[in-house]
């Protein structure tokens, strides 16, 4: 899924803010404001946990209340959340699992991933009152208001979350078109929202849900066994009339694409891709410079500064040995390796010293 280039964006200050800006900096304002109310801020979009519920055996749903600097969302969209783990702020994208609500609160459902630092932290330790920086909503996979043609939603694992937001939005709209959800998980315990989905299916004849188990036997009428394939798609009476939305791991959405993209009325998919793994130290990678809007191919493992200079780019720099911080720039995405220490960093960073770091994957730099 494509996240915005700058993970957490700020709005332009209002007029009264420009007026008093010479007297108080946003940092000082925020320091005292946070003592009045946890999400009161000069301009930073913040969200506070107001409710925590167990969504399944390994997932938790957090209801968040964003402050007024957050601009809202459409069902199916995602947000970036900055979570502090061990003193370091890590940014992750989460799909909003609830439809837009009148009270302005939003919900994310976080599945604890083995070895996932942020998801483990949120699953184990997030509690009511915690405050996170939140980015603007993003994502193109949304449903038009009052859809006419039937809708098929294909979800695998945590891919249910943006589709759940759509289902809730459609339910609030009285299910204006027939909606079929096919939802895959390994075992029954891993299904999120199962009770709610069955309630909705009872309430709305136009809504049908089918649970697919890949590592357990089907036991009830709305359960099936097996991976995504022709048998599953055959449950849709007339694929060519359907708008199809798929969300899940890359392999799942690709399988869905192969099965229905050519025949369905429309097909949209979003895949949760795992962070890039480093395969080798040789070869070339692409560096995208967001400010100068250039993309360059450079050798892996070379100092990024030297590699850019070899291509005629002249980034600001100083000592060339990693001490003066002049060359530090934001790295919204990609994996780098510190050439002195050998440490590898796959996290988005606000300040990457390009003189002593080499690229090990494709990178985006704020240059």
């Amino acid at each position, binding site marked *: 899924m494509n996240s915005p280039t700058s993970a957490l964006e700020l709005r332009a200050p209002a007029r009264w803010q420009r007026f008093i800006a010479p007297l108080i900096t946003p940092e000082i304002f925020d320091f005292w404001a946070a003592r009045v109310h946890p999400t009161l801020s000069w301009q930073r979009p913040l969200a506070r946990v107001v409710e925590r519920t167990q969504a399944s055996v390994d997932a938790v749903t957090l209801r968040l209340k964003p402050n007024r600097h957050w601009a809202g969302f459409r069902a199916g969209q995602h947000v970036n959340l900055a979570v502090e783990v061990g*003193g*370091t*702020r890590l940014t992750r994208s989460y799909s909003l699992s609830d439809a837009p609500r009148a009270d302005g609160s939003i919900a994310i459902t976080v599945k604890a991933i083995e070895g996932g630092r942020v998801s483990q932290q949120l699953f184990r330790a997030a509690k009511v009152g915690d405050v996170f920086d939140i980015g603007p909503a993003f994502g193109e996979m949304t449903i038009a208001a009052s859809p006419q043609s039937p809708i098929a939603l294909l979800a695998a694992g945590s891919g249910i979350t943006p589709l759940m937001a759509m289902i809730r939005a459609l339910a609030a709209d009285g299910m204006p078109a027939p909606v079929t959800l096919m939802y895959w998980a390994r075992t029954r315990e891993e299904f999120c929202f199962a009770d709610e989905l069955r309630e909705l299916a009872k309430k709305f004849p136009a809504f049908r849900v089918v649970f697919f188990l890949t590592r357990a036997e089907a036991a009830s009428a709305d359960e099936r066994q097996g991976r995504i394939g022709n048998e599953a798609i055959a449950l849709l009476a007339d694929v060519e009339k359907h708008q199809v939305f798929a969300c899940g791991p890359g392999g799942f959405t690709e399988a869905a694409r192969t099965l229905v993209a050519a025949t369905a009325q429309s097909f949209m998919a979003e895949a949760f891709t795992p962070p890039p793994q480093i395969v080798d130290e040789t070869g070339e990678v692409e560096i995208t410079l967001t400010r100068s809007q250039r993309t360059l191919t450079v050798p892996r493992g070379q100092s990024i500064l030297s590699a850019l200079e070899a291509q005629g780019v002249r980034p600001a720099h100083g000592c*060339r040995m990693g001490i003066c911080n002049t060359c530090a720039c934001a790295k919204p995405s990609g994996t780098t390796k510190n050439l002195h220490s050998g440490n590898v960093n796959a996290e988005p960073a606000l*300040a990457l010293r390009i003189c002593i770091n080499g690229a090990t994957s494709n990178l985006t730099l704020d240059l």
Partner: protein
Amino acid sequence: MTKIANRVLSHTELEQFGAEIDALRARTTATLGQADADYIRRVVKAVRYMGMAGRGLLFVGAFFHAVLIPCWIAGTLLLGLSKILENMEVGHNVIHGQYDWMGDPKLNGKTYEWDIAGTGDNWRRSHNYSHHTWTNVRGMDDDVGYGLLRLFPEQRWKPFYLAQPIIAIVFAILFEWGVAIQELRLGRWFAGKTSHAQMRKLFRPVGRKMAHQILKDYVFFPLLAGPFFLPVLLGNVVANVLRNLWTYMIIFCGHFTADVETFSKESVKGESRGHWYVRQLGGSANISGGKLLNLLSGNLSHQIEHHFFPDLPANRYAAMSVEVRDICERYGQRYNTGSLPKQFGQVIWRILRHAWPSRSRHSIRVSTVPASGESFG
């Protein structure tokens, strides 16, 4: 004072020296985490509360004349301490990028702006780059006398320097303003080497920051006290001057004590990493004291460790210094440290002595000949 001659290190020894310092850096970096994040946030909190309390007491004193004097003294001291802590332990260290690993936009080295007349941006260049990369290299590190003072015999004497005992005092009182205009290089402008148009461009951000500080400390807060503005204004002036004197003293002790060395441009050509460390060691001096001194100096009481690891959180320097000292001892390198009165006494002596013509008694020693063709590249 006994001078311990540094042992001249062979090329291999220099490399090993550098490798040991690098290993210490790597071990420390690996343990950065929640405790460091909590520490710097605690300091920020102390800065805010002390600043608020200081300003509050100034107002109380201004409105209730019975308690004017005790409130004014306490308020001014608290405000001064808040500024010292903000400038040294938060501002200086955050601007070095020491807490960039936290990813907290409020503690980002590239954007942090501090409560002092000089802009963070100019500081990033003159201090983080020029001073830290070329520490005590004559002609490259502007902090060698700040283009105003003659502190080393290697600087050419001029009759102007006879006035430096006075100039040094005025400079100390106005230190923040001196630092604020350092990057403008007014000397070059007076000499006609910088055009008026260039100067206007250079001055714009500097002037804006100066105006901001003046407006905040000398107009806005005093005016809040209405007719009783005078004690508030004076409190702000004195707090800023106290901060100036303190930072001046700490910074001068860091590089201008009796035994620190300066270096020629030629001696640093093609420097290796080990050689760079040895030069940082020779050009820096620590101040021994307790935890309070470490805190109030922004850990510049460990100037040597700061120059070895300018981008590591300064709250780690004290612990690292044990190992740094041991490494220096094993390689026969002097580790320059002393109490604040001793170190600052030496600084004062330098200011007085080199106001007069002086000659270097020993030629400046470069620890080794840099290996050819080896550089940081």
